[in-house]
């Protein structure tokens, strides 16, 4: 009897096993969450080893006529190519951003680039824009892939070791953008707040150095910071006043704190280190803009509505050799 019972149990057990194995599925698992990238600040601004970061080369004077660049010069090579290759931004509202209606990149920086193209070709449209990130500015100049960089490019002693600059064409400084009604009133009140700045920039490095109790949050660029800000993922954004003005212009609930900038950011037009002739030529172009009032007209069009009248075109410092 026990043998029969065992056999019956075995048969029924097998049948049950077959039936049950057909029914159960392992649940589809969720993927492992991606690691949250940690913000990467550029090395904190190196101590100034020079006192002439804004000093550039004497302007080329008189400027050659458009289309008649001096033989053997960098400008002649650009003229030969037929277009000026400009590294710039496409999402820095007011300085260089793409107008969705026209598709054109426009802004204060673009006006500077067009002035250079006009001086070389007599046609401001003979430029090829290359949209680059802040981190690409120096490598692309060194590689010769762009002729000039006009992209909120601060002149520093360290950068002079790698590239050359025109005279300062705009004097900016780092500030803070917050929500209307925020309790943040300046650098000293950032403790415990999430503050965004683009990865790999001196803005993030300055934030870490000057407000160590703030929680830095990195983004690909300042517009990326604005997206985080609008989503409520950060409390503030820090960057150059020009850039922050562009962000505030896109968000009616964002304001740039009315305070003295806590860094000095002299913008220059970057060229390859060996192309000092091009830097001197651009200095001549900037002098023309000063005399003709075009610099001021451009400032009034793009920046004055958000930054006020300002202090005008910076006084040039020449004499670099």
């Amino acid at each position: 009897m026990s043998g029969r019972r065992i056999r019956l149990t075995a048969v029924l057990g097998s049948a049950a096993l077959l039936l049950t194995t057909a029914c159960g599925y392992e649940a589809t698992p969720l993927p492992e969450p991606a690691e949250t990238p940690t913000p990467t600040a550029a090395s904190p601004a190196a101590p100034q080893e020079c006192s002439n970061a804004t000093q550039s080369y004497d302007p080329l004077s008189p400027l050659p006529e458009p289309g008649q660049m001096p033989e053997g010069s960098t400008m002649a090579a650009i003229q030969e190519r037929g277009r000026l290759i400009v590294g710039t931004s496409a999402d820095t509202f007011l300085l260089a951003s793409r107008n969705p209606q026209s598709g054109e990149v426009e802004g204060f920086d673009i006006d500077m680039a067009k002035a250079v193209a006009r001086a070389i070709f007599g046609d401001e449209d003979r430029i090829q824009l290359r949209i680059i990130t802040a981190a690409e500015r120096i490598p692309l100049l060194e590689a010769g892939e762009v002729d000039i960089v006009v992209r909120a490019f601060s002149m520093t002693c360290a950068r002079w070791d790698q590239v050359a600059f025109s005279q300062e064409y705009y004097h900016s400084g780092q500030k803070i953008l917050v929500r209307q009604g925020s309790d943040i009133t300046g650098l000293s009140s950032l403790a415990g707040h999430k503050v965004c700045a683009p990865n790999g920039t001196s803005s993030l490095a300055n934030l870490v150095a000057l407000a160590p109790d703030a929680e830095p949050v990195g983004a690909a660029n300042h517009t990326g910071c604005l997206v985080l800000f609008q989503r409520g993922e950060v409390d503030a954004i820090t960057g150059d006043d020009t850039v922050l003005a562009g962000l505030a212009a896109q968000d009616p609930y964002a304001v740039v704190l009315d305070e003295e900038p806590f860094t000095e950011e002299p913008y220059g037009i970057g060229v390859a280190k060996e192309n000092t002739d091009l830097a001197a030529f651009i200095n001549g172009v900037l002098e023309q803009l000063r005399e003709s009032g075009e610099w001021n007209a451009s400032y009034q069009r793009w920046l004055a509505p958000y930054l006020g009248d300002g202090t005008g075109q910076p006084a040039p410092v020449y004499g670099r050799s």
Partner: protein
Amino acid sequence: MSSAATGGRAVATAPPPAAGAAVAPAGSALVPTTVPAPPAAAAPRLPLSADVPTALARWQAVLAIAVVAWAVLTAAILGNSFDKTRTGAEHTGQLIRVHEIESNLFLADAIATNAFLVGGLEPPEQQAAYDAALERVTSLIVEAAEAQPADRAVLEALNHDVLRYAEQMQQARANNRQGLPVGAQYLREASAQLRSDTLPLLDNLITYNEQRADGSLTGHTWVLVVLPGLVLLLLLGWFNQQLAAIFHRRLNLGLVGAAVLVAAATIGAGVVIGSLGSDARGLREGAFATATSLSSARTAAGDARSHESLRLIARGSGAQFEEGWIEASNRVLTEIEGDRDLENLWEQYTAAHEEIVAADEAGDWDEAVALATATGEGSASAALRAFDERTSAATADASRTVADALGRGSWQVAIAAVATILAAAIATVAVSWGITQRRREFS
């Protein structure tokens, strides 16, 4: 009746009956007429008891149980195959559904990114196509969650991601219409999120449903269903031999009848399972593979188109996006390998894309954008639309073929299972009847 099976040995010597059963019924041609008493040591015996009538009664029960057990086991194996076939249809349906979700998401992304190139005022037909693709995605997610509970956690996360994607795209479009560059950033983030967060979810859904579908389309082994039948046939044959040795009649009609039924049912079940396995292999390598490959090709085509538009949005710094385009194009070519029509369509799009790249690299961004957004004959948009329509229709055809074939297979299995149960019922009666005839010889 059972004596008829004994041929010329109609009158046989019965085994020594147990004590008190020495006299066989008289006047019956079906029962022994004499009951000799050979030496006890030489008398054949049935296992389970030295007492033949008791042993016969026990064996009657054992064989009935064996037939029932065989029927249960065979029906269970067939039931398992039925279940596998049915769930195979469901899993393949789910897999194709997930592929369609992925294709439509990438199609929506391709449309949205391309629309950014024409400025804030999107063409209404592009907006409608984007909305239709996303609506299809959301309805497919609901269908998929109903179809496979094991996918629900991932589908919930997917639904969350799709909502987030749609919301970001909405903000991108709203900002773009106002001329604000933050719109392009929302677009980039939505596209990046699609690839970094949403794609792993879809990959998991595809991997696990592929495994489930694969498991359902394999394992239809005819040996498994034939083995219990063979064991039962051996048992019936052996018992018939035992009876023949005792009753000196070669065949017991009841046992023979049961054996014929078991053999027929076993062969039938084996053939059904065998053909099911063969059909499943054919589907896996045929229509099923076609459906998943074409769906993947459609997804990769949308991915390539998005990279093309992102390249132009990045204006002059599109190298990273071109790498993405090349990678997506290679995926398309792998998936459509051997389909000349589709290869020709993709070649047309590739040629149009190369013109766009050439214009962009020559510094003529406006011309590149004009080429990328043109919709006339010979344009990249037209070539891609033709490719999408062709892959979409072919995927739907292949999916229908898979569903139809699996539906037919499951009915064959169901019929075989019912036939097995009926055969077992009759075989149990036959075995019982055959042994009863022998037991009567002792009553």
